[in-house]
């Protein structure tokens, strides 16, 4: 649905140049929630803003459906932009207009009849839960409410895709979650494709189907969130996952301090899907006769997929250990001997 083809963007003049994106390729599929994660300065905003050409690439193409929008005239581009909603970290609402008028803004740009505006805006206010705030000005709203107005405004033209530029980065964790839930609803109920950029793994994990990791203007890793999350390959991806896990360092210290040999090993086990909730481990050790201690265990969901991770120390004969690992591997997603 959206395809970026060898996209390069260079800022600056002859004397000083910054390359924000370099020969970047990316394909986003209809109906998915696609997350792009990267550190500050990695090129996330430039990438997102290239999709609706707020930022013109230095070279490369942007395809929307089967249109190469980099080749369109300004007027044709305005038309295409109406099919893409956009929300922003700092909301970017008109401070001089009420909630109602902000949401009506894109409709008035295309001279929608008054009654139709009234009906559409009322529905959108209901969707984002701001019916009783319709006559307030943005300055009178909280951050979360402002973002809801931003979302309603972005949906007014019935877009096919919603572009989110760090939409929750200015919000507290609780408000972040309520906005993420709203985005998920919009994706499910209205079938709108969502592209979001963030520097928080939590956001990706909560709502995204697929993720791309951007570093120094390039996509260094991408795939379904569950895969990337459980088998991160690039250093930057690992860093993001580690940041999510606050106890990672403490656990490392504990593992370091444990004596290990052929008969005692520390193992990381990842569970995915329904196996997460089953007592696989205790059943297996009963048959293989090894003993175990759980050093750490987490259980969470990635969007709708439950997943768990256990750090376990097994003790037993080498033979019994290997038999245990094989049995575990045949039933769960992944097993890795750490020490």
């Amino acid at each position, binding site marked *: 649905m959206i395809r970026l083809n060898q996209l390069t963007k260079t800022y600056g003049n002859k004397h000083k140049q910054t390359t924000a994106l370099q020969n970047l390729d990316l394909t986003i599929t209809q109906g998915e929630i696609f997350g792009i994660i990267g550190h500050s300065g990695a090129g996330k905003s430039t990438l997102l803003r290239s999709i*609706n050409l*707020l930022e013109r690439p230095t070279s490369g193409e942007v395809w929307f459906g089967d249109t190469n929008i980099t080749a369109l005239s300004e*007027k044709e581009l*305005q*038309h*295409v*932009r*109406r099919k*893409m909603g*956009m929300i*922003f970290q*700092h909301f*970017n*609402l*008109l*401070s*001089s*207009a009420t909630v109602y008028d902000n949401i009506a*803004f*894109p409709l*008035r*740009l*295309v001279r929608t009849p008054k009654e139709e505006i009234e009906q559409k805006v009322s529905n959108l206010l209901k969707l984002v839960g701001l019916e009783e705030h319709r006559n307030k*000005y*943005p*300055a009178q709203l909280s951050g979360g409410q402002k973002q809801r107005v931003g979302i309603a*405004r972005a949906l007014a*033209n019935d877009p096919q895709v919603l*572009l989110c530029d760090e939409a929750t980065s200015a919000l507290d964790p609780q408000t972040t979650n309520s906005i993420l839930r709203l985005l998920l609803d919009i994706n499910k109920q209205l079938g709108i494709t969502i592209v979001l950029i963030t520097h928080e793994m939590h956001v990706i994990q909560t709502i995204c189907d697929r993720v791309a990791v951007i570093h120094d203007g390039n996509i260094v890793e991408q795939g379904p969130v569950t895969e990337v999350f459980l088998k991160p390959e690039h250093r930057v991806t690992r860093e993001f996952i580690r940041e999510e896990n606050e106890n990672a360092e403490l656990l490392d210290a504990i593992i370091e301090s444990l004596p290990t040999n052929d008969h005692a090993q520390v193992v990381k086990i990842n569970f995915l899907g329904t196996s997460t909730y089953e007592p696989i481990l205790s059943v297996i050790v009963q048959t293989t006769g090894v003993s175990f201690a759980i050093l750490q265990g987490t259980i969470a969901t990635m969007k709708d997929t439950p997943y768990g991770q256990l750090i376990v120390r097994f003790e037993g004969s080498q033979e019994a250990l290997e038999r245990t690992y094989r049995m575990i591997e045949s039933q769960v997603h992944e097993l890795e001997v750490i020490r």
Partner: protein
Amino acid sequence: MLSAAVDFSNVDWNEMGIATWDTVRMLFFSTLFTMIIGLPLGILLFMTSRSDSNGSRALYSVLSLIVNILRSVPFVILMISIIPFTKIVVGTSIGVIGSIPPLVIAAAPFFARLVETSLREVDRGVIEAATAMGASKGQIVGKVLLPESMPGLLAGITITTVTLVSYTAMSGLIGGGGLGDLAIRYGYQRYEPSVMIVSVIVLVVLVQLLQMLGDRLVLKFSKK
């Protein structure tokens, strides 16, 4: 000391009334034409300054230079030096009508800069959001820039009008009519300070009223 020397009985209140009315008319028309010329000029300055086309940037440099020149010439000199031009445009260089072209030429560049500055204050993100929603340049000006900068624009209009009050007084020097003319003719040439004092008081009251009205409008349009 002054009050002892001043005798208000020789003030011709009828003439004072006419002069006040002339000043108000000069002010009204010069402000009106200053807005008509200065607002688009200010918008053009703003739009060309942030454009990334070379042609626009060149246009900005030229406009900016003209505005700077007009703003750096003292009003009295400007007023006298454009007398031939004034005669061509309105047929006379004296009276209420003759004073309007120099007032507008002096105030419009000043107001244009105030407009440009106000528009710069508008959050770039909001302009960007409108662009992302498919707004054209004209829609961005009309539906984003002007409403969002309304308090700043109103403050700019107030400042310009108050500046025009003192300019109208100066145009009295070349027989522009109004309170300034009256004050100079009586106060300076015939040495009758009473007329000068009353004229100045009327001007002060006028400025006060304009400022109060302006402040009130700015407050009404501020939603931040």
